[in-house]
């Protein structure tokens, strides 16, 4: 079945595109919209975006591959992104990642078999003063300790 935006998303798409000096400037926000709507950016989703924004499909594919927040593969219901960059690393990021791996029973880059959790390591999220930290979907969890990691996981289950 061909992918398509819902009427509501389509309305937002048109409004968004209309604000930019050129249609293609809206590509990244539109891809984010598509990702929200379709779950992840599989090939048909990229082709659809290419069509509505009038760009070659290869360009869209290329752009998606450049940005870490655009996913071509499915991610779990909770996308746990633990920061690994220096300030967080100095404050114990590695231990947090180890805790998450053990608790979830997966490696970095994997998704739990129930599809609930995907674990990723990411670079500095501008929260270094409250390191170590992680982001779950859009929410920040800061000043982590192993106990706090456990609590967060518990609250998500």
């Amino acid at each position, binding site marked *: 079945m061909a992918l398509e935006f819902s009427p509501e998303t389509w309305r937002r798409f048109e409004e968004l595109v209309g*604000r930019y*000096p050129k249609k293609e*400037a809206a*590509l990244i926000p539109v891809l984010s919209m598509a990702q929200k709507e379709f779950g992840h950016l599989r090939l048909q989703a990229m082709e659809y975006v290419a069509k509505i924004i009038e760009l070659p499909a290869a360009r869209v594919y290329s752009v998606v591959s450049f940005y870490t*927040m655009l996913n071509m593969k499915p991610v779990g219901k909770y996308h746990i992104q633990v920061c690994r960059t220096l300030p967080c690393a*100095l404050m114990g990021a590695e231990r947090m990642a180890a805790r998450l791996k053990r608790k979830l029973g997966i490696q970095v880059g994997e998704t739990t078999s129930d599809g609930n959790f995907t674990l990723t390591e990411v670079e*500095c999220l501008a*929260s*270094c*003063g409250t390191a170590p930290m992680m982001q779950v979907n859009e929410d920040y969890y800061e000043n982590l300790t192993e106990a706090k990691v456990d609590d967060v996981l518990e609250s998500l289950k």
Partner: protein
Amino acid sequence: MEKILLRNIDIQDSHTLQVYESRGGYRALRKALKEMTPERVTEEVKASGLRGRGGAGFPTGMKWSFVPKDSLKPKYLICNADESEPGTFKDRLLIEKDPHAMVEGVILASYAIQSHTAFIYIRGELAFGAKVLERAIAEAYQAGYLGKNISGSGYDLELILHRGAGAYICGEETGLLSSLEGGRGWPKVKPPFPATHGLFGCPTIVNNVETLAVVPWIIDQGAARYAAIGTEKSKGTKLFCVSGHIRNPGVYEVEMGYPFRQFLEEDCGGVPGGKKLKGVIPGGASMPVLRADEIEGVRMDYESMQAAGTLLGSGGVIVMDDSTCMVKTAWNIARFFAHESCGQCSPCREGCHWMEKIFARIDNGSGEKADLDLILNISGNIIGRTICPFGDAAAMPAAAFIKKYRDEFEEHIRQKRCVLT
């Protein structure tokens, strides 16, 4: 010291228009639109001595004056809210706690360069910040500070909040432009420069959040008051973000020229847990590290930092105590840059990964002594030979770690393991 940038952030609901206005917000805008020509605004900012807070420290007013006045093309003002430099989290604070200050700054700067379309490019991960900004922008539209005929002045401005999607290089201003054009965040070759050929080939000014957020204060209080703060060449105050092994991490507003050691030891409470300072990166991960013995006499301004062999950068101060393995630290930074290199130009694309692989090898105990000179050589072959300053940003810290902690690296190589554990 009078707080300028952080003047509002501890107030309840500081992010709302009501609170912002109650504290004198948008007074500068009304004044500028009523009493000042665009050129006057630029002149005022020039006179304040304000320099860009995004890392390079370029004089802001001068940058604005590069925009051709007679251009028939549209002009764009872009607020760089991509804050991704490791160790930097000041813009996020401003965005979340005082969004109207940056919105007002955006409007003032747009007016100064006579732009009618402005963008705030916010890094995609800052979902909460985007929500706060979205609301602030809506409030500003509603109050007539944005849109058509702002405050009855006849000046129009559209402000678009644009969210990125995860790529450090989009903080580099031309990488940002490519991204905003709907592309990969590939920096552009210069010349031409954005002020004449920026977004879609049109004159464009890119300024950091902190830079723009201070503009309303300058216009409101006058350039002279701002210029009275700081040192001869580094005016005003600057935000510093302190992280790592420090008792009181956080964002501090500091008068330019403040003694670095005093700042770390007194303002930030020093290194906790009875440990000693081993090194500090003063301006975000892309700046050369200073050894503990090198910070004596260093002041927190552009010139003094440069004299000490490093740079003020974004103001991301990363503190390392004496339990820190410098091999692992250097590798962590090298890995960051290898991960974030956009891959466009050969020295950076290949060199960053090459260095990362060698650091990783040294870290896991299979390094050789010759590797250290090899890294220095690779670093030297990147610096100054790339499309954008990312190359330098990746190469400089790598070289600095080896030069400044060479004994530790050699010992690590000899013992094939970390010498601190």
